[in-house]
C-alpha cells in the first residue's frame, strides 16, 4: 500500500498533516470556547456575590427600619432569605463545585475554582460569611418579634463590621475569574494563530512541492520529447504509427516525408500515403494485411511472408526534369498499447540499392549462364563444323552489312533489301539451331523479329535500319567471342593430339553426327518421333564447298521432313505406320562422277491443299486461279521467297525462307533438284551435283 502510493507519497503525507492540524485546532477551539463560556458564568456569578453582600446588609437594615409585622418587614425578610441562600449556595459551588441558581432562576453548574488567588478569596470569604450566616439563620428562624430583634442587632453590627471586607473578597474573586477568562481567550487566540500559521506553512509546502514536481516532470517530458524528435529526425528509415482506422499518427520520422517527395503525411490515411504508388488491388491486399495485425490471435511474426509491400516502386521528379526511381520496403510490426488498443509501427526502408544489386546479380548470372552455354555448345560441336559455321556466319554478316550500307531510296527497294537481310538471318538461324548453338539462334531470332516488324511498317526510316545494325553488331561481336574461344580450344587440342598422333579420320566419323542430333532435337520440339539413317556420307570424298552445300541441304530437308511431312505418333499409328518415323539420307557418287544426295521420309508427303490454302491466305494469288493450278505448279510455290505452310513460327519452320536459298545455291553449283511425293506415304528430295572438278571449274 505504502509503495503503491509511489510518487504521490509526499503529497498524501502533506494532506494528512494538514487535516490533522485542522482537526487539532478545531478541537482545541471547541474545548477552550466551552471553557470560556464556563468562565463567563463564573465571572457573572462572582459579580452577583458582590451584589448579594450589599443586598444582605440592605435587607438587614430594611427589617430593622420596618414597622413590626408590617408588609415591608415580611418583604425584607424574604429578600434576606433569598440573598442569603443564593450567596451560600454559590459560595459552596465556587469552593467545591456543584449546582447553584443562575440569574434567570435556572440551575447552573459551577466548577470548583482552581487558581490559588480565587481559592484564598473563597476561603477568607467563607470564614467571614459563616458567623453572619448563623445570625441570619436565627433571624429567619425567629418565631417572635423579640427573637427577631434580638438576632437582628448582632447581625447588623457584624455585617457593618465585615461587609466591606466581604465585598472586597468577592470583588477579588470576580477580578481573578475575569483575568483567568482573559488569559483563556488569549490562549485560544495563540492556538488559532499558531494552527492557522502551521496550516499555511503546510499549504505552502504542498504548493511548492507540487510546483517543483510539476516542473521536474515537465522538464523530463520535454527532454523525452526532444530525444524522440532527435531520433525521428536522425533515423534513415521512414517511421510512423498506424491506428486501427489505418490512419497515420502525428509523429513520424523526418525521413518519411522526404521519401515521399516532401508530402505532408501527418494524420493522413494509409491509402492516401501509398495509393498513388501501387495498383488498387495491391492497395486492398496491403490494407487487409495490416488489418491482420489488429487481430489479437494472429501471430505477427508468422505472417511476414504475406507482406505485399516489400518492393514498392516510387518515381520522384528530380531537378533535371526527369524521374528517379526508388524502391521502398514496408515492414509492419504490432505495438501493444493500453486496454488492448494496438497500433502498428511501420518502418519504411529505401531498398533501391539492394533491388539494383539483385538485378545486377541476376543479369550477371544470366550472362555467365550464357557464357557457360556458349562454352558447352562449342565443346559439343565438332571443331571443323564449328569453324565452317563461323566462316559462313561472317560471310552472311558481311552480306547483310553490304545491304544495310546501301539503303534503297524507294519503298519497294527498301522492302526488297529487308527481305534479303531476312533470308540471310533466317538461314543463319537455321544453321545455328541445327548445331544446337542456342545463343546464336536466340540472337538471330530477335534480329528476325525486328526485321519482320520493320517490314510491316508503311514507312521505313533510317532509325529502323539503325536498330537492325545494332542486331548485326551484337551477332558479330558474339561470333567473334565464340571464334576466339574456339581457336583457343583448337590450339589446345592440336597440342594434345600432336602427342597422341590421332588419325585424321577420327573427326570425319563424327563430322555428320550433328545431323542425327538435329533430327532428334527438331523431332522433340515438334513432339514427333523420328530416326535418321545416314548412308554413304563418310565414304564420299568432298571438297569444302560441296561439303558445305551438302550440309546445308541436309539440314534444310531434314527439318522440312520433320516439320511438314512426318506425322505425330498417334496419327502415324492410325495410318498403320510405325509411331517412329524414318528419314533416310543417302549420298553416293555416280559412275559418271556426279554426286547424288537424296533425303527420303515416310511421312504424309506434300500436302497440296495446304499449299493452296496458304497461297490464297497470303493474298498474292487469286483464289479462283489457284483452284486450277496443277500440283507441279503448286509445288513451285515452296521455292518462293517468304512462303511457308507451317502454322506457327519456330526455330525450325515458319519464316518461309530456306527452300528458295537451297534452290539458288544448288543452281549456283550447276546442280539439279527433284521432288517426288506420294500423298500419305512418303516424300523424297533429290539433288544431283556435277562431278566436283567441273563444279570447281564452274565456280
Amino acid at each position, binding site marked *: 500500500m505504502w509503495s503503491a502510493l509511489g510518487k504521490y507519497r509526499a503529497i498524501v503525507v502533506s494532506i494528512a498533516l494538514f487535516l490533522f492540524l485542522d482537526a487539532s485546532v478545531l478541537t482545541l477551539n471547541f474545548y477552550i470556547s466551552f471553557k470560556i463560556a464556563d468562565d463567563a458564568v463564573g465571572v457573572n456569578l462572582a459579580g452577583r456575590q458582590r451584589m448579594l453582600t450589599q443586598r444582605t446588609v440592605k435587607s438587614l437594615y430594611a427589617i430593622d427600619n420596618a414597622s413590626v409585622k408590617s408588609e415591608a418587614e415580611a418583604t425584607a425578610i424574604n429578600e434576606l432569605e433569598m440573598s442569603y441562600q443564593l450567596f451560600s449556595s454559590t459560595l459552596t459551588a465556587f469552593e467545591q463545585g456543584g449546582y447553584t441558581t443562575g440569574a434567570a432562576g435556572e440551575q447552573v453548574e459551577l466548577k470548583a475554582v482552581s487558581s490559588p488567588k480565587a481559592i484564598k478569596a473563597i476561603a477568607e470569604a467563607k470564614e467571614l460569611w459563616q458567623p453572619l450566616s448563623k445570625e441570619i439563620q436565627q433571624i429567619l428562624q425567629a418565631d417572635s418579634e423579640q427573637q427577631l430583634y434580638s438576632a437582628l442587632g448582632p447581625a447588623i453590627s457584624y455585617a457593618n463590621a465585615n461587609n466591606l471586607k466581604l465585598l472586597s473578597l468577592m470583588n477579588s474573586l470576580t477580578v481573578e475569574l475575569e483575568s483567568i477568562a482573559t488569559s483563556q481567550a488569549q490562549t485560544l487566540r495563540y492556538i488559532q494563530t499558531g494552527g492557522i500559521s502551521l496550516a499555511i506553512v503546510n499549504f505552502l509546502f504542498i504548493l511548492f512541492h507540487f510546483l517543483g514536481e510539476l516542473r521536474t516532470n515537465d522538464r523530463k517530458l520535454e527532454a523525452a520529447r526532444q530525444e524522440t524528435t532527435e531520433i525521428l529526425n536522425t533515423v534513415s528509415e521512414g517511421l510512423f504509427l498506424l491506428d486501427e482506422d489505418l490512419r497515420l499518427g502525428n509523429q513520424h520520422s523526418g525521413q518519411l516525408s522526404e521519401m515521399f517527395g516532401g508530402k505532408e503525411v501527418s494524420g493522413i490515411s494509409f491509402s492516401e500515403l501509398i495509393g498513388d504508388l501501387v495498383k488498387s488491388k495491391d492497395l486492398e*491486399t496491403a490494407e*487487409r*494485411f495490416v*488489418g*491482420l495485425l489488429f*487481430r489479437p*490471435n*494472429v*501471430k505477427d*511474426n*508468422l*505472417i511476414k*511472408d*504475406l*507482406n*505485399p509491400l516489400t518492393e514498392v516502386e516510387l518515381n520522384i521528379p528530380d531537378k533535371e526534369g526527369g524521374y528517379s526511381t526508388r524502391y521502398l520496403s514496408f515492414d509492419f510490426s504490432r505495438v501493444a498499447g493500453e486496454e488492448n488498443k494496438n497500433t502498428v509501427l511501420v518502418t519504411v526502408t529505401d531498398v533501391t540499392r539492394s533491388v539494383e544489386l539483385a538485378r545486377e546479380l541476376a543479369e550477371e548470372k544470366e550472362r555467365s549462364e550464357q557464357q557457360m552455354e556458349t562454352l558447352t555448345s562449342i565443346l559439343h560441336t565438332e571443331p571443323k563444323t564449328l569453324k565452317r559455321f563461323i566462316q559462313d556466319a561472317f560471310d552472311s554478316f558481311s552480306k547483310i552489312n553490304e545491304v544495310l550500307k546501301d539503303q534503297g531510296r524507294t519503298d519497294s527497294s527498301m522492302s526488297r533489301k529487308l527481305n534479303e537481310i531476312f533470308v540471310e538471318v533466317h538461314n543463319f538461324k537455321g544453321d545455328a539451331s541445327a548445331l544446337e548453338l542456342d545463343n546464336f539462334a536466340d540472337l538471330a531470332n530477335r534480329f528476325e523479329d525486328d526485321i519482320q516488324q520493320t517490314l510491316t511498317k508503311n514507312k521505313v526510316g533510317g532509325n529502323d535500319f539503325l536498330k537492325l545494325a545494332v542486331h548485326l553488331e551484337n551477332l558479330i561481336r558474339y561470333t567473334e567471342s565464340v571464334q576466339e574461344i574456339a581457336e583457343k580450344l583448337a590450339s589446345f587440342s592440336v597440342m594434345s593430339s600432336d602427342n597422341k598422333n590421332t588419325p585424321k579420320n577420327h573427326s570425319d566419323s563424327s563430322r555428320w553426327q550433328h545431323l542425327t542430333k538435329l533430327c532428334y532435337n527438331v523431332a522433340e520440339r515438334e513432339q514427333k518421333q523420328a530416326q535418321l539413317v545416314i548412308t554413304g556420307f563418310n565414304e564420299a570424298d568432298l571438297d569444302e564447298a560441296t561439303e558445305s552445300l551438302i550440309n546445308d541441304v541436309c539440314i534444310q530437308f531434314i527439318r522440312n521432313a520433320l516439320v511438314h511431312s512426318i506425322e505425330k505418333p498417334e496419327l502415324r499409328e492410325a495410318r498403320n505406320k510405325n509411331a517412329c518415323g524414318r528419314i533416310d539420307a543417302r549420298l553416293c557418287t555416280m559412275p559418271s562422277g556426279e554426286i547424288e544426295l537424296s533425303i527420303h521420309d515416310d511421312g504424309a508427303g506434300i500436302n497440296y491443299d495446304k499449299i493452296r490454302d496458304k497461297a490464297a491466305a497470303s493474298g498474292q494469288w487469286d483464289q479462283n486461279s489457284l483452284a486450277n493450278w496443277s500440283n507441279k505448279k503448286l509445288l513451285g510455290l515452296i521455292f518462293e521467297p517468304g512462303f511457308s505452310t507451317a502454322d506457327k513460327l519456330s526455330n525450325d519452320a515458319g519464316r518461309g525462307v530456306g527452300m528458295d536459298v537451297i534452290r539458288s545455291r544448288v543452281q549456283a553449283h550447276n546442280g539439279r533438284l527433284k521432288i517426288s511425293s506420294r500423298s500419305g506415304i512418303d516424300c523424297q528430295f533429290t539433288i544431283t551435283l556435277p562431278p566436283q572438278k567441273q563444279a570447281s571449274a564452274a565456280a
Partner: protein
Amino acid sequence: MTAPLKMLIVDDSNVIRRKIERGHDDTIFTVVGSAASGAEAVEQFNQLQPDVVTMDLTMPQMDGIECISHLINLNPEVKILVISALSDKSTGIEALERGAQGFLTKPFDDQKLSEALKELVEV
C-alpha cells in the same frame, strides 16, 4: 511437464505430410492424424479434436480456405498454421482472416517448421 498438443496435418501431398511429421518438435506436439483433403480434415477433426492443425490451401474436395472456416466453427480455440506456396498473397491473407493464426511458406526446412509451430502455440 504438460501432455503434448494434438496435431492434425492437412496436405494433399504425402511428401509434405511426411516432412511435417518428421520435422515437428515431438516434445511439444504429437501427430494424431493426417488428411489429404479439406473434407477428410473436417471428418478427422471431429473425431480427434486436435489442438493444432497445419493446413495446405490448394487441395481437392474442399480447399484450405473453406476448411479453415469449418474448423474454426467447430472449435474457435484451435490453432491453425497455414503451410502453402506463396503464389497469391491475397489468398494467404484470406486464410488468416478466416481464423488461421500463422503462415509458413513452402518450401520450408525443419527448423523453420519447428520455429513456426512453437510461435503458433506460444501464449
